[in-house]
């Protein structure tokens, strides 16, 4: 489980009472989209680092 900002922290995988199954499905899809976003971010960070390294060779 990756760390989360304390005030954002919620490990709840279900929505509070009042949500129906369709809303839960949307929530699950939203979580997948966030995971996808973070995976792409990691990919871009590696790219940026490699560009930086190429421009500034280590001594």
């Amino acid at each position: 489980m990756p760390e989360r900002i304390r005030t954002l922290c919620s490990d709840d995988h279900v929505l509070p009472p009042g949500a129906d199954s369709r809303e839960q499905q949307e929530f699950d899809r939203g979580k997948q989209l966030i995971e996808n976003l973070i995976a792409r971010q990691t990919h871009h960070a590696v790219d940026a680092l490699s560009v930086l390294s190429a421009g500034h060779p280590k001594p």
Partner: protein
Amino acid sequence: MTHKSIAQLQRGLRQHTLRVEDVVAEQLNQIQAKQDRLWAYIDWDADAALSTARQQDALLTSDPNALPPLFGVTFSVKDTIDVAGMRTTAGSKSRVDTLPAAQDAIVVERLRQAGAICLGKANCHEFAFGGPSFDLPVPPALSPWQAGYFPGGSSSGSGTTVAAGLCHASIGTDTAGSIRSPSTHCGLVGLKPTYGTLPIEGVHMLSLSLDHVGPLTRTVADCALLYDVMAGNKASAPQSASRSDGKRIRLGVPLPEWGLEQELQPEVARMFTETLARFGDAGVDLVPIELPSLDAMHVACGVIMMAEVAYAFGPTVRKHFDQFGRVFRGRILVGERIPASAYLQALQDKLRLQRQMERALSAVDALVLPGATAVAGPLNEVDTFYFLATINLNAIANLTGQPALAIPTGMAACGVPFGIQLLGQHHQEHDLLQLAAKLEQIVGFDVQLDTDAAYSLP
């Protein structure tokens, strides 16, 4: 409405072929008549607007030289922005019983001091984030161009009120395109100024790193006028935006490897290519430029926005779940899944991408992009997570903080407008508006809107 611009309106008022009271009364009649079709407004104040209108009519007769720069101009205000004496509900059940705002937001106050007449609060997505949603106190605003269509968002009512002639201008907010999206889909001009340029006091914020406030209008000249007043500058004459300096325009266009075309609906790709061809035929230099990664900018903006809105609203949404619409609360709770490391990485990426974008634009007057990746569709088909599932071109300028201006360029096959957006250098709003005025003349968008026909009204 017979006048298409503020300049035309004010000419008619000065020549006494129009009266401010009649203009305002007609708009109020239309607001009432179209409310249960368009849901453009959340609330309006007819008495206050008519009272100001009468004062201005008296001044037109007694002392026309004393008229303020925006006399006769009516405007709506997105309901996340305070207007003294009116409730700021943010389109949310959670705020329907809130007390009326004690004072105007600074941008509202400046417009009023310049003579503009506030008609009321424009409909919007819940807290400028959760919509379109059908479980809010007021149904979602609809496009005046095509029955049941999405007018863009989250400043949806701002777009609808101006496009439908229910006011002359509107104030919206823009966190990931919420001014430019309704401008693009409603055939309007919309400006997201440089980050931090316009005061945000009295504006209910969503994501502090990305939020902006700005105007939506019918023409570039109107936009220039509104922007100057909102920025606290001396109002420039609307015509000044179309002055020609004889220099060739250099518009930056993305290199093919940037991947823009793959993200566009085929119809949008075709319209964008046609617009660029028209610019080229008119003598505009189209300069291919290398830009920072499109996906990296989309991702960084998405991560920052989702983390910051979850930070602002998460605990309240969990505690008072039923007080929020399902689209808003779903998005907020999804935002809670952002790890702290991802948020911090995104803030670093923001600075790096901003520098890269500044360098990329240094050789051109502005970057031109489509107003959106797709034309507007039926409102009930809008994906809850459309801004994450597909690339959001508007998010680029929110991330980099550069000024971005949407202008209309033509009509899609389904009968709704479409447009482009121009990204300029930081704090160069006037240059961007001058440039847009020239491009506006080249594209010559002048399509007659017939909302009554679109909605089969008698």
